[in-house]
């Protein structure tokens, strides 16, 4: 009873239909990925094991491979800085990575703020908080433009002065100080003010990766949408529920083709009848675009594509 009450309300149907583990498969993989991303950076300062140095803004993997945050690099250019070859290679590598695994896979699989906001959403459900100050989801795009414009105006990397994403990841790796208050503010925003307020409405980092996400390869697809019972579990678990409908209820592609998708797999976990699966952007080319119940080519892919992401 106590154990059951910890399960997110939106995953309850999935748990009943598929069991606790299968209804949390992608959730577990994501938490593992987020924890590893931080731990690999923290192993150096804590245990002296230097697999990677630096932090998410820029780092050096195995003493050679440069990795850089492309949105920070873009602001740096806007601020009038001529980027070094090293920074460009680092940022290019990261862009390429997310073009493959999904633009906002950064949000779902790496960013530590996601854990904070997921927790706020979980608590929101548990406490039955329905108060939801509606914000336009395009606000984040405006804030992204504001960050770039602010960088031009000030001649500095403007968003990094307040970016909660940087404050949290850098704080965990280098020391937090008063940064916890910024994290707390994001948590309280998501809990009391707007559902999924930070990640799905305000954060310009997510908006930036969303632009990459428009072209990215790995995608969630509503492959077996004919089985859908309209229970609504996927909509309740999804941080961007507006992007599901076209793939689930439309007559066109079954692929969730919005850049806003985090590839978090929440819908795959939560669906009691396994409508969704991790796939690629091209899967609609293989299965007929019309709404016909052809499941064979899609299920062929099923065995292959998830491995790409989890492996």
């Amino acid at each position, binding site marked *: 009873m106590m154990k059951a009450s910890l399960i997110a309300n939106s995953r309850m149907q999935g748990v009943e239909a598929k069991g606790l583990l299968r209804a949390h498969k992608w959730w577990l993989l994501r938490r593992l990925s987020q924890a590893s991303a931080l731990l690999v950076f923290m192993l*150096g300062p804590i245990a002296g094991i230097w697999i990677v*140095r*630096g*932090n998410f*803004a*820029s*780092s*050096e993997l195995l003493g050679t491979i*440069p990795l*850089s*945050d492309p949105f*920070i*690099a873009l602001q*740096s250019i806007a*601020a*009038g*800085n*001529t*980027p*070094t070859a*090293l*920074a460009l290679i*680092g940022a290019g590598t990261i862009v390429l990575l997310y073009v493959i695994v999904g633009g906002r896979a950064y949000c779902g699989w790496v960013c530590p703020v996601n854990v904070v906001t997921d927790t706020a959403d979980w608590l929101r459900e548990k406490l039955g908080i329905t108060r939801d100050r509606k914000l336009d989801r*395009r606000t984040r795009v*405006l*804030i992204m*433009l*504001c*960050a770039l*414009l*602010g*960088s031009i*105006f*000030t*001649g*500095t*990397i*403007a*968003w*990094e*002065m*307040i970016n909660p994403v*940087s*404050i949290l990841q*850098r*704080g965990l*790796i*280098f*020391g*937090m*100080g*008063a*940064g916890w*208050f910024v994290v707390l503010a994001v948590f309280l925003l998501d809990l009391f003010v707007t559902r999924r307020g930070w990640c799905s409405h305000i954060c310009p980092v997510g908006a930036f990766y969303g632009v990459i996400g428009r072209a990215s390869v790995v995608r969630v697809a509503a492959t077996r949408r004919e089985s859908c019972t309209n229970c609504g579990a996927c909509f309740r678990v999804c941080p961007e529920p507006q992007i599901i409908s076209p793939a689930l209820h439309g007559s066109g592609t079954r692929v969730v083709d919005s850049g806003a998708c985090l590839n978090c797999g929440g819908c795959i976990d939560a669906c009691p009848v396994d409508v969704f699966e991790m796939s690629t952007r091209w899967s609609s080319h293989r299965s007929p675009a019309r709404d016909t119940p052809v499941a064979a080519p899609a299920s062929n892919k099923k065995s292959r594509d998830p491995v790409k992401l989890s492996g």
Partner: protein
Amino acid sequence: MRRDKQISRRSLLAGAGKSVGVVCLAAVSLSAFVETAKKAQANALRPPGALPGDDFLAACVRCGLCVRACPYDTLKLATFADDAPVGTPFFIARDIPCFMCKDVPCAKACPTGALDRKTDIRQTDMGLAVLVDHENCLNYKGISCSECHRVCPIRDEAITLELQVIDKRKMLIPTVHSDKCTGCGTCEKHCVLDHAAIRVLPRELGQGSAELSRAKS
């Protein structure tokens, strides 16, 4: 039909105008905040080879690779409580000064050029040591403390002891030479007083000028 089109065009324009307005307002607000938040306290010194002023803040991504490269734990990334803009690398000379490594590993580690990796440690400008408290400096009391001179890594060039006669007493006065001092802060660190009488300041705060333009006007 035509009417619908007009309305939608009008609302489209209004929407676009609203967005532009929001972006401009937000960008100005963010800029105003940045202008306040970017100022560092005088005692927060930048690593060797740092680009001047805003150029540094345009290039530094606050990754901390310089911090990791420093063998003496001199450098830190600022949190909100510290005296430098959040996330940027700095050091407080009185805590741990710069040890002026010949190979400048911190600057070499910088991926963005915020620290010039070709910097010559002897030519770098982290600040300028200034003997700020003549009242309490022991050498000014006629005691040959001279600790700042003794510990200076560029001894007899950056700091010399100049023989002066003050109130008919011979004194050895520590004198900083701005063309040699790199602002490493070793003198500040080792000053024997409770609060250092010699301190590293940003050069524009610590240095006068030989020009007499003010006196002329």
